[in-house]
């Protein structure tokens, strides 16, 4: 789960990690009041969306009065912002962060993230700012990194050496080390997967200030963080996907017309690939988790039936020990009985209890085609969606 910038900064402030003075605003009037309270002559109005590259897309405005802050907020709020990191549809700006401008002597990049390869928390730092990905890719910029353990146990000198390698010296090296220590503590206590500060600004007073902050929290650890779980429910943009999550189903809405019902992430990805290879277009990704019961699965199938773009339902299931085929057959029966919208359904079910599933399916009055192998099922579904069958 990625947090909004303002939420990330509030969390980091609890670890004494400084960011510019500011407040979040949901309306233009709130933005004006927040700007007036700042009482500075350089103000940033920043669109709160879960994607970077906002500056280039006009999502970060610099103004010099509360009145101008109101106007900028009015322009941003409710708009869909498209940046290099969003989809073509963009993301709706529901709030803005109104923040005091900070004069930067120097801009740095600093992040902590889980590194699957070393199995450690990886500290990465360098000279930062906008377009960092591009500059690193073009080898104009080299980032330095250091693997930290969960307990942060490291020779004290190592972080200082890294600070020197990115061009810091004197008191800044010490401050950088202190900041890394605080960030590491925040990372572990929040069960983060990523904390990224870019830019980390060095002010003329020699202070380190987080001007932007990105925090991604591990969804699997939310049981330890009820307060963060609430943030997720508010921030999750797609209600459909959240509903599916609650029923043990990983679901991603897509643009096509072939609804998919699949157990397991790998088989689900394979199904999308085969649909594309057969000239079709999937309406969704669905991975029924092994913990889903038939009523949960029925909820997931209903989501596909309710999708007005879907013209056909493709079921590709390999029943395993946790989830035999008949559980999914039962779910199909429940979902179709409940639904006002009936779609033709192409069913390929094999594996554990497939015979039982076939018996069950025979009792339901579904407009179904049964296939024995998955490629046959995929091509049949594509043909149905394209009106060729």
């Amino acid at each position: 789960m990625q947090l909004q910038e303002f939420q990330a900064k509030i969390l980091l402030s609890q670890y004494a990690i400084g960011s510019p003075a500011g407040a979040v605003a949901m309306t233009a009037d709130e933005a004006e009041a927040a700007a007036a309270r700042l009482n500075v002559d350089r103000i940033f109005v920043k669109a709160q969306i879960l994607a970077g590259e906002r500056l280039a897309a006009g999502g970060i405005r610099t103004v010099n009065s509360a009145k101008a802050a109101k106007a900028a907020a009015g322009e941003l709020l409710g708009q869909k912002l498209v940046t290099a990191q969003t989809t073509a549809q963009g993301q709706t700006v529901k709030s803005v962060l109104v923040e005091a401008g900070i004069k930067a002597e120097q801009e740095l990049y600093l992040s902590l993230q889980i590194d699957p390869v070393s199995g450690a928390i990886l500290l990465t730092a360098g000279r930062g700012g906008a377009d960092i990905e591009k500059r690193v890719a073009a080898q104009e910029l080299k980032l330095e990194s250091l693997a930290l353990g969960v307990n942060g146990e490291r020779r004290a000198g190592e972080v200082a050496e890294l600070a020197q390698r990115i061009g810091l010296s004197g008191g800044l090296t010490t401050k950088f080390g202190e900041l890394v220590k605080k960030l590491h503590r925040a990372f572990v206590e929040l069960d983060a997967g990523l904390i990224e500060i870019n830019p980390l600004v060095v002010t003329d007073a020699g202070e380190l200030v987080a001007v932007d902050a990105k925090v991604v929290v591990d969804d699997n650890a939310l049981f330890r963080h009820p307060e963060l779980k609430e943030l997720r429910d508010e921030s999750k943009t797609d209600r459909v996907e959240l509903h599916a999550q609650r029923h043990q189903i990983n679901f991603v809405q897509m643009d096509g017309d072939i609804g998919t019902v699949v157990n397991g992430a790998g088989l689900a990805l394979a199904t999308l690939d085969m649909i594309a290879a057969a000239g079709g277009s999937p309406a969704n990704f669905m991975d029924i988790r092994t913990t889903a019961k038939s009523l949960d699965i029925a909820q997931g199938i209903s989501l596909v039936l309710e999708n007005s773009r879907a013209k056909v339902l493709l079921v590709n299931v390999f029943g395993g020990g946790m989830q035999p085929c008949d559980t999914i057959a039962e779910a199909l029966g429940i979902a179709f009985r409940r639904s006002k919208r009936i779609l033709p359904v192409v069913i390929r079910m094999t594996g554990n209890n497939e015979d039982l599933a076939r018996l069950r399916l025979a009792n339901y009055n579904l407009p179904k085609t049964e296939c024995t192998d998955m490629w046959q099922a995929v091509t049949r579904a594509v043909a149905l969606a394209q009106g060729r069958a």
Partner: protein
Amino acid sequence: MGILIDQNTRLLCQGMTGWAGTYHTNRMIQYGTKVVAGVTPGKGGKSHLDLPVFNHVAEAIGATAANASAIFVPPDRVADAILEAIEAEMPLVVVVTERVPVLDMIRVREALAGSRTRLIGPNSQGILAPDVCQIGVMATDRAKRGTIGVISRSASLTSEVTSQLTTAGLGQSTTIGIGGDPVHGLGFVDCLELFFADPQTEGIVLVGEIGGTEEQDAARYLRETGVKKPVVACIVGRSAPPERRMGHAGALTLHGSDDVDRKIAALRDAGVAIAPSPHLVGTTMRDLVAKRAA
């Protein structure tokens, strides 16, 4: 033979007395796996499924000479269960549980370094030596004893690939799920090494997906050591929408098609045969084996 498990495997189930533990222990016993004991803290001294239950892993090893453990405990207790098994020097630990917090796995990786334990998972369907031993929750109906090793990041796709291999007349030596999580135990490279060293295994299928670097690491390893046995790879996720976590926590990609293309190119350069579609893995391996024999 095959890798990691065989007829001498003596299995311990951590969390055996729970619902999932009971169900899957039963399945594994029916398949012919030698399950020797269960561990559930607080239930030591009792008996479950006609097997002794112990409070601690070390105690269970002492009494039953268990040499492998399957963990069926909820996500919040997985790390402690693995750490206990590592401390007791359990040679092989298989974790089926999904949704384990990633920082817990970082702690586990720290403990694994220099230990005597090999870890499979978490979020793995387990290991299967067809007709000999099953540790895990996978479908077993279509699996058949034979000479092909399967290494995969995904459970249901492994069942699919196994079924395709059997249909193509190729049985399996061992199928192994390394798990769908970003931080896990054994990886593709470890499993390739084991399969190359295994006399029963004559060919290997790698089932990969978007996200992470397992496939690139495997390609680098194969370039360095050479492809000692025929290897077929199937990499899925080309059509996944970008910047989304696709079910597996490990399957997050910025650009699905770029990522899959890079993985395929790296593996192909290393001498791996790429299955043209997920439904053609079995026939690709069959053709490769036939060509080699000719």
